[in-house]
């Protein structure tokens, strides 16, 4: 009888403590402001135009370019293989399988980097993975890939090598056979959707 009494007492007191404790909401998915700040400072989310050009030339299936500009702008000019998700439709259900997935690296781009940075922060904060930013956006794409600047002779060998690679890329993106408009290859495959976290089935004895 005594053991029963002690056990009951322990349980009730634990229950009392639980009742007094304030209710807390944890989220393992969403990032708080400090975590987001750290992520931004690490700069792991930036993909340079050279890196992207190289991936496109090699037909790297790992990357999925996402154009955040309006549909008209996208139709005028877009990067090969990109899909158009206008910024205001970023969280539409239609695009969820693209921006919330674990299969490919999404590279956001816009004219500058405002839209892409905002999109990256919003998706990052919601805990989506595999989203990146094209560094400098289309403006930088133009000044580095389409019209690369001739390095001054004072720059080292590395700069010359970069320049040559960019000239090659320029030829690829603007030269014979390469088409840069929306009619080009945009048959982006739908990536495997991230598994829903709530799909665990419950069961009783």
């Amino acid at each position, binding site marked *: 009888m005594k053991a*029963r009494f002690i056990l*009951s007492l322990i*349980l*009730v007191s*634990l*229950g*009392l403590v*639980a*009742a*007094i*404790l*304030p*209710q*807390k*909401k*944890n*989220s*393992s*998915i969403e990032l708080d402001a400090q975590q987001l700040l750290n992520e931004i400072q690490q700069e792991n989310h930036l993909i340079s135009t050279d890196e992207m050009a190289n991936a496109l030339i090699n037909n790297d299936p790992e990357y999925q370019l996402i154009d955040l500009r309006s549909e008209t702008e996208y139709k005028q000019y877009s990067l090969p293989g990109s899909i158009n998700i206008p910024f205001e439709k970023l969280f539409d259900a239609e695009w969820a399988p693209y921006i919330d997935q674990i299969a490919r690296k999404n590279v956001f781009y816009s004219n500058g980097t405002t839209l892409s940075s905002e999109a990256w922060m919003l998706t990052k904060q919601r805990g989506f993975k595999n989203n990146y930013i094209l560094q400098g956006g289309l403006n930088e794409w133009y000044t580095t890939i389409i019209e690369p600047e001739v390095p001054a002779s004072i720059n080292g060998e590395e700069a010359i090598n970069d320049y040559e690679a960019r000239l090659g890329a320029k030829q690829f993106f603007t030269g014979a056979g390469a088409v840069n408009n929306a009619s080009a290859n945009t048959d982006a495959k739908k990536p495997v959707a*991230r*598994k*829903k*976290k*709530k799909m*665990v*089935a*419950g069961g*009783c*004895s």
Partner: protein
Amino acid sequence: MGPIIPLFEISEEINLLIAFLIGIGFGFALEQAGFSSSRKLAGMFYGYDITVLKVFFTAAIVAMLGLLFMNYMGMIDMSIVYVNEYYMASAIIGGVIMGAGFIIGGFCPGTSVCAAAIGKIDAMYFIGGSLIGILIFGQTYPLWEKLYNAQYLGSLKLSDSLGIKDGILGLLVIVAAILMFWLGELAEKRFKREDISKEI
């Protein structure tokens, strides 16, 4: 911080392996509690043995307190913990059918597997019966579909529907459990059955 095992980051095979290990643990605990004996299980209905009540409520209280404290310490994200969906109509009807099956067959689905594992023939028949029932239900599902999905209330928590804090509900459940244990032990004395062996 987060789930102890992030389900969506491990492979399906590892996931099944973990489920397998947990399943073995669950079966072992059921067997150790004496739940492979239909005498013990039926005792809950007739009032001469309330082990079932004690085991399940103790398990529920321990798990509940664990979740409450882990949540308070930021060790678990309750928003992605699975909460069984509540279909009111099928919960009531299913509960009645399960209760009737429990007292007629002497097992519940989980304990029948436990008992079959230690070689009880009645439990094997019970499993066969459940499988036939599942087959019939599956084949005639369109007939029941409407009833089955009626009054869907989603992943509802009791504390949310009552509008009280999780912790306070926890305390109420503990108090209720202790009262039930106490009443149950009185019932055990009142409905004592000397003719029923305590042996498994």
